[in-house]
């Protein structure tokens, strides 16, 4: 099946009170393709996603969507007020009216069938992300837009979730636009990386981006090293007697 272009973003500019947040952003997403938007906090990733979704109007440039494109969206950080009695099943069907069997099938596809009748507030971060994914899938999307899909998910869950997203692309052939703040997390699952810091610093195949000087500058050598399989971060030091002392904040 030849890849169709689902989404084209052309020369997008966006500013808040005269401060440029996004400058001249151009990229595209085709069917069956996973594109990752990466960049540090404040790079404008979420703003760009909101523009793609039509929630914000860009100040320059344009967003082209394939006519009739169905978008499944998985927002960043969703908290449902404790006062709202809502089961996962009800939550998942808030966006589309579907029979119960299809709800079960979608939750089974994302591995969250166990929490079908649980209150949405009582499930874990990973289960919530899966429920959000199921809600997006029930819309039979051509394009999935995932904003920090692994937020609040433990390390094992993160790899499972990326594997799941990779499977979705294979099984359903939909295009996926994914936001992440770290490259090494999305590396294995991604075809194309757009490295963003208000403008596009570099873009291309993940291996290529990881070696790009612009990427190294943005994330630092330290950030680039995290591409290694194992990394750990010291959040404390020891004094001469071996007791833990607080580390001074290196960022100032």
């Amino acid at each position, binding site marked *: 099946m030849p890849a169709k272009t689902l989404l084209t973003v052309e020369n997008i500019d966006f500013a808040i009170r005269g401060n440029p947040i996004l400058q001249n952003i151009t990229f595209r997403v085709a069917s069956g393709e996973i594109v990752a938007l990466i960049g540090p906090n404040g790079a404008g990733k979420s703003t760009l996603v*909101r523009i793609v979704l039509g929630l914000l109007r860009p100040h320059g440039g344009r967003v082209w969507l394939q006519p009739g494109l169905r978008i499944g969206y998985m927002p960043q950080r969703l908290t*449902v007020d404790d006062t709202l009695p809502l089961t996962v099943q009800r939550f998942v069907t*808030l966006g589309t009216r579907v029979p119960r069997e299809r709800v079960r099938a979608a939750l089974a596809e994302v591995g969250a069938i166990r929490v079908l009748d649980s209150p949405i507030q009582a499930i874990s971060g990973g289960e919530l992300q899966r429920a959000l994914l199921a809600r997006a899938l029930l819309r039979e999307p051509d394009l999935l837009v995932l904003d920090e899909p692994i937020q609040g998910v433990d390390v094992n869950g993160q790899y499972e979730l990326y594997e799941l997203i990779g499977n979705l692309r294979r099984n359903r052939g939909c295009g996926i636009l994914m936001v992440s703040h770290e490259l090494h997390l999305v590396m294995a699952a991604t075809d194309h990386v757009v490295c963003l810091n208000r403008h596009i610093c570099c873009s291309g195949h993940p291996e290529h981006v990881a070696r790009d000087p612009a990427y190294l500058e943005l994330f630092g050598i330290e950030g680039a090293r995290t591409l290694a399989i194992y990394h750990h971060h010291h959040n404390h030091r020891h004094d001469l007697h071996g007791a833990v002392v607080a580390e001074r904040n290196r960022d100032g």
Partner: protein
Amino acid sequence: MDDFLPRALLGGFGVALTAGPLGTFIVWRRMAYFGDTLAHSGLLGVVLGTALGVDPELGVVATCLAVALALVLLQRQRRLATDTLLGILAHTTLSLGLVALAFLETVRVDLVSYLFGDILSINATDLCWIWGGNLLALGVLAWLWRPLLAATVHEDLAHVEGVPVFPVRLAFMLLIAIVIAVAMKVVGILLITSLLIIPAAAARRFARSPEGMAILASAFGCAAIGLGLWASLRWDTPAGPSVVVAATILFALGSAAPSHWQR
């Protein structure tokens, strides 16, 4: 027995029926203070309606909507936090209402009955307003239910899924304005929010679904009306405040109920 009591009960039930489901949304959306602000502006609406020679209820609906729109515009400026804006609007409109009232020398407005309600004096015309307004609001709410619920859980997600979020929000504000206008007679401007949020809060522990919570909130509201009126007659206490106290007692009893009754 006089027939003021059946009329009071009928009027109270009419308001409680709609206040239940509408109040659940106010609780879910954390808009209690917003409801309070609209209610505070009600007196200004009464005065304007009276001064212009139209029904006070219409004046209240129009004023509440104007305040809601003013809030939306002020929020867009992002200069002040929403609770600050609400505080400014609530007290300004209440004071404006009181000031404007002083200019209405020719018309006598019973201030206390508007502030705290006068449920025992509900007449047939009031009943028409109450049931007409509430049935209309209930119908619109039922029609809006799904999109409003989706927008309550996550506005952006609902927007992407095709919910016209802004019109739905405006319609919801209109419903609050209508209910405030017709509930004024029952508990008064200063106590209306309690009829919206206390029954909804009481219903939370016993509800498994949004719809269940809405229906339970209506039931708790009606029970509070009945209990409050009975207490008011029994001990000769003011009716509106007695209804609110009854609602709070129901809420407290509900909170103390054994936990296996929950959810």
